């Protein structure tokens, strides 16, 4: 008979199950992008997925760690990266990004669970530095804009969108155009609702993220002085929803404590907003989340849960 230490019971979920839920939750946003941009968007999608899978496989072979590829986490990375890229982005650049994400950011630091930066976001940051023009050649959604001029340049695209005075209700349906995954905030929300309902992600990070973004947007981003901004615009425009529900909630790079996740989420929102309003990058979410990634260990330290029976400053 088998003798092993307790417990002898397991909840049926494993890492592959979790990753499959995330992949499923990303499908609406992916299909919305493919529908909007047609087959032209396929190369970037496949390039990013293939690159991520290759980077993962390299390490699995090099370390003869068989079996780990079944966890599907590299597919999540690849798909997330594709959704962050412009739809007509050259496929080989996307492939390079995928390779970088899983091969260097994730694999070189020890693989799944050991990387301290989000692989997809790091890859996006790298691509932005390497090919800034290709990265900012957006195909602007024809529904949203009459004059389909590609928005390129150093200013955040949200700023440009704001200048067009589109109400957020329109944006919610059609997205601002831009990256492949940003064609329909509604589709992102459907996936997010699924992840929240199945308990795959915790609400604290997205709640902190979006709340601080909206509040900050209302306070700082208005054209008629403090407190005149549209809070919903900041949430709906660009990659904020994708970032809040799918990037910032990345298990590996987010804090594991509840308090830590609140602060982390709010930090992501504030940094995103500051970069959008005052920074020189086309998107604030990437750097906002990446910066907070590096703060995660510290946040965990200062938000250690109270032990049972321990008296703390906030407990009698």
């Amino acid at each position, binding site marked *: *008979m088998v*003798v092993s230490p307790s417990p*002898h019971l397991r909840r049926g979920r494993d890492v592959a199950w979790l990753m499959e839920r995330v992949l499923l939750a990303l499908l609406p946003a992916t299909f919305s992008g493919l529908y909007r941009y047609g087959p032209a968007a396929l190369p970037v999608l496949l390039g990013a997925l293939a690159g991520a899978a290759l980077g993962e496989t390299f390490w699995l072979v090099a370390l003869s760690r068989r079996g780990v590829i079944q*966890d599907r986490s590299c597919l999540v990375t690849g798909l997330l990266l594709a959704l962050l890229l412009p739809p007509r982005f050259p496929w080989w650049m996307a492939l390079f990004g995928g390779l970088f994400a899983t091969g260097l950011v994730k694999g070189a630091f020890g693989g799944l669970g050991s990387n301290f930066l989000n692989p997809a976001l790091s890859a996006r940051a790298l691509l932005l530095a390497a090919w800034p023009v290709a990265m900012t050649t957006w195909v602007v959604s024809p529904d949203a804009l009459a004059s389909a001029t590609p928005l390129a340049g150093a200013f955040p695209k949200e700023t440009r969108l704001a200048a067009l005075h589109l109400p957020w209700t329109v944006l919610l349906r059609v997205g601002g155009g831009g990256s492949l995954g940003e064609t329909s905030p509604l589709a992102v929300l459907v996936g997010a609702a699924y992840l929240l309902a199945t308990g795959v992600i915790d609400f604290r990070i997205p709640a902190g993220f979006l709340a601080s973004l909206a509040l900050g947007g209302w306070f700082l981003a208005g054209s008629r002085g403090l407190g005149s901004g549209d809070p919903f615009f900041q949430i709906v425009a660009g990659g904020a929803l994708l970032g809040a529900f799918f990037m910032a909630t990345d298990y590996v790079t987010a804090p594991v404590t509840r308090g830590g996740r609140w602060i982390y989420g709010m930090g992501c929102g504030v940094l995103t907003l500051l970069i959008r309003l005052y920074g020189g990058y086309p998107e604030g979410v990437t750097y906002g989340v990446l910066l907070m990634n590096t703060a995660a260990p510290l946040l965990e330290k200062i938000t250690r849960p109270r032990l049972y029976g321990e008296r703390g400053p906030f407990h009698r």
Partner: protein
Amino acid sequence: MRFRGGVAFPRELKPFADRPITGLPEPAEVLVPLYGGPGKPCRRLVERGERVEEGAVIGEGDAELAAVHATVTGTVTRLETCRLPAGDEWPAVRIRRGESAAHGQEGTSRAPAATLPDLACQMGILGLGGAAFPLHRKLRLPAGAQVDDVILNGAECEPCLSGDYRLLLERTAEILAGGLRILAHFRAKRLWVGIEQDRERAIAAVRRATGGGRRARVFALPARYPQGAEKQLVRTVLGREIPRGVYPWQTGVSVHNVGTALAVSRAMAGQPLLARVVTVAGEAVREPGNYLVKIGASLAWVLEQVGLKERPEKLLVGGPMMGFAQADANVPVTKGTTGILALTAGEWPQPTPCVRCSACVEACPAGLLPLYLEGYTLKGLFAQAAAHHPGDCIECGACSYVCPAHRPLVQSIRWAKRESGRRSPVA
């Protein structure tokens, strides 16, 4: 107030609750461990070849230990060392059932003790919730200590077990009588009976029996594991926590399993603790259910009586979360045997790297960070692990249960506990 952390099990894990407690026949042979409490064995009072009556005292200790009784009438055939379910080796007495001896044993004819702790000690009562701690030691308090609340623990301590539930349904009055006796002993103010919400019938039965009385009241607990753990129970029922490093009585509360209350009630009627209710279950068992089993009957005999469909892959004593896997079935049923589970699948899957999903942190009722405790321990960084308070872990297993990476978290934390006891935390 709900305790923090924990896990909710699917309802399938609470089966067999419809079947009444069934008495198993007298075993032909029992192997009674001379166990009267942790620490050291009881002094043996019988010799090989001696005839003993059911209920005769065969082992006794000093003030710390409860008495041990012969659970069948017969002859002492061997004095041996047995293995207890938790793995310790312990002296034991093997008794073959036989005809009643003509003259009574000296042990049975003793005058019943006057005080409750003495009675509990004399009647061999250990906590029946699984920990098997001598009741009289929980009842004896230092001068000046005052207990205001007595809680009877009717929250099954583990999933798959339903013995406490059946006892609450079938022996309601006796359990309450035992509880009130404990209440009277402490001169306490309130008697609580904690029962999980989804055990509606037991709640109704106890409510009926108390008749809405002021002294005993039912507390419907959330159906959440580990609600049956002492600290979590106190937190839920009384809304306060037992500070770290402090005994429950120091905060004015005393917790007892409902089976223990029943044993008190029977001891008051002069009956020593000779048998207990054991949930026998698992995929390999033909007739799963709750059985009244004599202490000292072997697991193999119990399984034979209940019937096996197939050879079990894993045999557990206790529940699936904290139970002990047995190497073989020649282990006696003890006063701490809440359940016997014969499972057909035993292997724990291969662990994969931790993905920091925080499921273990959310599940931990002690407020620990199991992933870091394990991470440091497996790297041999015991000082860092010790800084994460491994001693606060109640080994409930909730963290390992939820971990999607199948990390053996509890096992690592036990290791960290041992190492942090051995080294000073700053070393």
